[in-house]
């Protein structure tokens, strides 16, 4: 600009109701910033994602074990007391799955809290550049979602993969293949095949990550910039 700055009121250009159009963070740019944040600090991102990775790996292993057990039972051709054992097994499976989900949640919440807190100074700086509170939340949600999905997929692959190898010896390669369509979970009468339950686990992992990041990100966005900038990280 070659014209003199400082002419005109400081609030010139502030049309009422037009604020949302005046300050923008396009989703494409937000996504680019998120990718940079994740991949430039790959090590740190991996640690953040490890909580979800381990939780979903455990859950996937549990689910695979449940499906493989029913295949094994069929192969053993044992009919005596089968139904009773099956019901007991199912109850244990649901309990184990719930526990692993709880463990995953604790890990994710911790990771996301750390991830937000160690960037208070960055958040304060961005607010000084004019970022709206919603931008800060948007950036952290994107990062949490991306890390959550990637971590869940990796966890599912490793968790189920290890179990597949373990069961090779017991039920053979064909048995392992059949496990994927066998029932892993029985929830209120509905039988959920293994492949679907693992898919659900991945989706839940992503949703949990986003939910865990939401509150800390919102808190951090609301802070007065002076307080955020005072952080020592």
């Amino acid at each position, binding site marked *: 600009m070659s014209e*003199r*700055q400082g002419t005109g*009121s400081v*609030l010139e250009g502030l049309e009422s109701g037009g*604020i949302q159009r005046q*300050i923008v963070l396009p989703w494409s740019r937000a996504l680019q910033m998120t990718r*940079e944040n994740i991949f430039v600090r790959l090590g740190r991102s991996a640690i953040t994602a490890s909580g979800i990775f381990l939780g979903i790996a455990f859950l996937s292993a549990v689910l695979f074990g449940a499906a493989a057990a029913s295949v094994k039972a069929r192969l053993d051709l044992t009919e005596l007391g089968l139904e009773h054992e099956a019901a007991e097994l199912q109850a244990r499976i649901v309990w184990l799955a719930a526990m692993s989900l709880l463990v995953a949640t604790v890990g994710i919440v911790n990771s996301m809290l750390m991830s937000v807190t160690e960037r208070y100074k960055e958040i304060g700086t*961005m607010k000084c550049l004019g970022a709206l509170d919603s*931008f800060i939340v948007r950036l952290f949600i994107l990062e949490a979602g991306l890390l959550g999905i990637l971590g869940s997929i990796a966890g599912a692959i490793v968790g189920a993969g290890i179990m597949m190898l373990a069961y090779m010896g017991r039920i053979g390669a064909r048995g392992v293949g059949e496990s994927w369509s066998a029932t892993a979970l029985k929830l209120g009468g509905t039988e959920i095949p293994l492949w679907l339950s693992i898919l659900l686990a991945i989706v839940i992992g992503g949703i949990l990550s986003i939910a865990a990041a939401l509150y800390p990100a919102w808190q951090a966005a609301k802070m007065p910039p002076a307080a955020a900038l005072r952080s020592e990280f």
Partner: protein
Amino acid sequence: MSVYEYIVRTKDLSRVYTMGDTKVRALDNVALDIRRGEYVSIMGPSGSGKSTLFNMIGGLDKPTNGTVFIDEVDMAQLTASELAFLRCRKIGYIFQTFNLIPVMTALENVTLPMVFAGLTTEDAMEKGIGLLGTVGLGDRYDHKPTELSGGQQQRVATARALANDPAIILADEPTGNLDLRTGKEIINLLKQMNDEKKVTIISATHDLKMIDVSDRVVWIRDGKIERIEERKDIDIQVGQMEGEEE
């Protein structure tokens, strides 16, 4: 909207921090008027309240009492969005610790405020390269902050502060983390912006090198303004300046 003489005005400005049972008066009824295009240095020892005053004027923190007027608009009356607009378009900030985003290159740092202001990527890049050239870093646009020296980082921060052609630049101890020579470069850069672009510069500092380029110096101590001096009334001998302790 008409143009006002005083771009920043504070009235009965106070900030009290409550820590347990003790109350600390960081600012005590400060009244300060700053004209458009002025270069004002707020000077005082550590704990004098100059950073608190900086935070008040920049809308980074809320006062306990009193008002800050930017172009006669009460900052407390602004919504969060309007404040963000102010910070994006009208005020540029420079900090002692540079505060660049570590995962972004120099150019990305400088163009970030432009992204918020809605500039297209090409326009932002072009303007960003131009600004980096103005501060003497045109060839380091793709360097990350870790690959730049302190002085270079502060120059990137200065370019960033100018991203959306602000009316005011607020600098909190801009030379605090820099050596003598680099500090002087930054001060000269700020003076250049003040002269060429008529940007109002408000700097909180305890660096005496600032005095020479300021139009007025506000001396602050224990949260109160001790005195305000015009540059021409301050007697500085060049010889003493060089050896001055900070």
